[in-house]
């Protein structure tokens, strides 16, 4: 029996100790007509590890082999081998939430280090131990801003149209149940940025927060100082949505404008987590010290043991559902611990210089790629704002068609902006340090052929 160690002798001895005749007897409190025994006909027969492995090898191979330039919120980066060789050590991989602190100092210290790393990257005061992902993290941040902004009575938050539309829709799906409304701030069609002008008519209105995405979905860098100061001047908190790799090069939200952002969230995936079809990733979440009690998710504190020795433990649990139940800051319980562990190892391995180099190469490669592609007739940059490592290009043909033709050549050329922005001919393209000169040429060549 796969994974079950009991022999017939064991079973007999255990039933004897229980005083039952058969395993079936143990289910005698269940109304007989409800029992499903023998019903699971739609399940196939069990397979050996070898056979499941072969099957999944074949499946995985079907999806491999293309060169991808898709970003849109999830980015390819080189992941040092040490990261997952250590993260998948049984001690990290098969432990659970560190409820027994004394027997979980490993995980607890990792989280404390992670919290420190994230606050240093974002220039914020405190961090939690992860939420599910960047998008649901934004939903948590929106809800948190309602609790944290004592000056506001509003259940409305301003969200830029240039925010990743998947973040907007997930946030919408989550917060609308509590009658929270997201209002959209349009972007400048020429620059691909969110301008103060577009905010002006909201002045004087009550909003709990303004969301600022840096870079935004188009890869454009926003004028974060002005936006931040505008929000604060208008009684709103600032929720920053940032790319963690970009933080190595770009002003961190803690330093935006006069006072810095109030809450920071983002997708942690770029920090050592593989693309992996969308998950597990992790959302990171930082805030100013004064809002820490409004923050959802686990938080680890440093303290001392009976003998005065340093140790780590779950703290501020009164915010959490297992203590506060319906009064909790969120329902989140199981989080994305292992991905966070990997990110901690990744970030430590790269250090300030390594992460800067990754960010710089990603930026520079994207510039080179954009230059190569816009040298093709009819291909142009859609916007004029400076970009980090993603860029919107307009094509002489419908994006969907072009992307499909590129995919036939095993080049995944980005995502179309047709559905989300009615920009039928526009694609969002990303390159990072993993793209070699040949990769870029491959894309250029393929696009030439497709557009020819």
């Amino acid at each position, binding site marked *: 029996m796969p*994974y079950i160690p009991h022999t017939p002798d064991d079973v007999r001895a255990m039933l004897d100790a229980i005083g039952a005749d058969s395993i079936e007897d143990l289910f005698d409190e269940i109304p007989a007509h409800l029992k499903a025994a023998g019903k*699971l006909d739609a399940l196939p027969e069990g397979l050996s590890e070898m056979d499941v492995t072969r099957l999944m090898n074949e499946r995985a191979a079907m999806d491999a082999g293309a060169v991808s330039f898709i970003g849109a919120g999830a980015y390819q980066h080189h992941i040092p081998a040490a990261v997952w060789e250590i993260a998948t050590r049984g001690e990290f991989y098969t432990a659970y939430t560190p409820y027994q602190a004394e027997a979980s100092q*490993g995980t607890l210290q990792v989280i404390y280090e992670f919290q420190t790393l994230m606050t240093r990257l974002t220039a914020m005061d405190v961090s939690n131990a992860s939420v599910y992902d960047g998008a649901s993290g934004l939903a948590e941040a929106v809800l948190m801003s309602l609790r944290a902004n004592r000056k506001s009575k509003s259940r409305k938050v301003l969200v830029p149209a240039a925010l990743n539309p998947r973040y907007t829709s997930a946030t919408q799906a989550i917060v609308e149940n509590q009658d929270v409304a997201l209002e959209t701030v349009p972007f400048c069609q020429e620059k691909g940025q969110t301008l103060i002008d577009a905010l002006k008519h909201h002045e004087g209105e009550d909003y709990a927060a303004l969301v600022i995405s840096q870079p935004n979905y188009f890869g454009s860098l926003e004028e974060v100082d002005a936006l931040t100061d505008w929000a604060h001047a208008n009684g709103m908190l600032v929720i920053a949505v940032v790319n963690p790799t970009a933080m190595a090069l*770009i002003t961190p939200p803690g330093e935006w404008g006069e006072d810095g952002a109030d809450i920071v969230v983002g997708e942690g995936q770029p920090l050592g987590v593989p693309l992996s079809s969308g998950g597990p990733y992790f959302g990171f979440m930082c805030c100013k010290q004064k809002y820490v009690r409004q923050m959802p998710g686990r938080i680890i504190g440093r*303290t001392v043991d009976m003998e005065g020795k340093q140790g780590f433990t779950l703290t501020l649990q009164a915010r959490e559902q297992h203590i506060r139940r319906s009064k909790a800051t*969120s329902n989140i319980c199981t989080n994305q611990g292992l991905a966070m562990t990997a990110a901690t190892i990744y970030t430590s391995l790269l250090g300030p*210089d390594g992460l800067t180099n990754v960010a710089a190469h990603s*930026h520079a490669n994207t*510039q080179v790629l954009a230059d190569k592609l816009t040298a093709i007739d009819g291909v142009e940059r859609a916007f004029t704002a400076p970009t980090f490592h993603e860029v919107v290009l307009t094509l002489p043909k419908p994006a969907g068609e072009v992307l499909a033709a590129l995919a036939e050549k095993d080049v995944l050329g980005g995502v179309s902006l047709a559905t989300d922005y009615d920009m039928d001919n526009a694609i969002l393209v990303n390159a990072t340090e993993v793209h070699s000169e040949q990769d870029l040429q491959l894309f250029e060549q393929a696009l030439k052929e497709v557009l020819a």
Partner: protein
Amino acid sequence: MSETQLIFQLSHPGRSATSQAPKALSDDKLSAIPAHLRRKQKPALPEVSEMQVVRHYTNLSSKNFAIDKQFYPLGSCTMKYNPRGANRAAMLPGFLNRHPLAPESHSQGFLSCMFELQNFLKEVTGMKGVSLAPMAGAQGEFAGVAMIRAYHEARGDDERTEILIPEAAHGTNPATAVMCGYKVREVPVGKDGDVDLEALKEACGPQTAGLMMTNPSTCGVFERQIEAISKAVHEAGGLLYYDGANLNAILGKVRPGDMGFDVIHMNLHKTFATPHGGGGPGAGPVGVSERLLPYLPTPMAGQRDDGSYHWIDSDTLDTSIGHLSAFMGNAGVLLRAYFYARSLGREGMIRVGEFSTLAANYLLKRLEAVGCTAAYPDRRASHEFILTFAKEAKELGVTAMDIAKRLLDYNQHAPTTYFPLLVPECFLIEPTETESKEALDEFVDAMAAILEEARTEPDMVKEAPFTQPVRRLDDVKAARELDLTWSE
């Protein structure tokens, strides 16, 4: 010794793990970034060598208990063996490197696994549709209650403001109800661990949106009145939510769909043996009955007539409650669950419920025999059960917490403590089907020894643990003098 240092304390200006990143670029390659948006000072990340990182985190890892090392009978968490084959399969490059937005032409392998997993989950739960999108149990609950809300709203039935929840329920249940905009009304639980049916009936009414419950309940017993409960809630116009955290107990035996539940979530990191990762990630797929099909969260995997697979997204399923994350959920966890389902197959699934229940009932009887007090002595255990140390706390001053800490010295992870809240000084113990009889016996021996110590050396027990990297920690200080990040 160096183990207690923080990675930041190993940092040394100018040191780095050079080969882990590309070489530095000259600044002119960055000229497209306006100066005023450039970071002024590089972030104070650790500057350490590759070996320092490997050594640091390898040593830290050894300060954890884990299933791979210890018996870990954390009730309600189903800490069963996590097959290593599942890890290898989920880490295949074809899966790891697949972008979540890759076109369907480059996703047939992955989609086929997801489509099959949806079907397996439908079959074992008896539900009509499954979405894999939720990223953990609590997000599954959210999706479930949001669907209940969407259902009522779609019918214009918008006076329903309350969710009923038995008092034994996990904290995520009430927290979820609130996140979905509902008020929570708690329903008392009787002395035998079953819901107080009369109180429930009284609580039901036109304001009832639904009931959230776990069965077997968090009291570690099967709710025998489930059909009556279902009837009462349904008659009041509410829907029934099944918290699948305890699905392990009944896998292959009873199906939530057959019990009358309208919507359920599953914790694949429990029932389907995916690892708990030191706190996550998990996966919390939701299953629904016919009437909630239109509201399932997206995306889901679908199959075309020609056998090819595709995504079902909110553009085609516009009644969906939508996306709960940027992409499709915790794909890597789902692949591990898929591996597990394929290796168990039909017969294996049925055995899970049987043997997890066998293990729990055996462990309960043996623990009772060495002097432990069961919270529900007249009931069958499900896959878990509750002990109460109220007597020891009162007579010896030794609490459930003390016993839990002392267990660590016996190289046993402590069970869940102080949950459910209604049983004083309690342990919720879940051994799972993957622990050998010998492992269970060792736990019994440890408990017997500790009970003896509690009688003869209570002060020692109250100071436990003695063998861990730290002694008992000052949680009050941790909360009062918040120290959440390290600074030089």
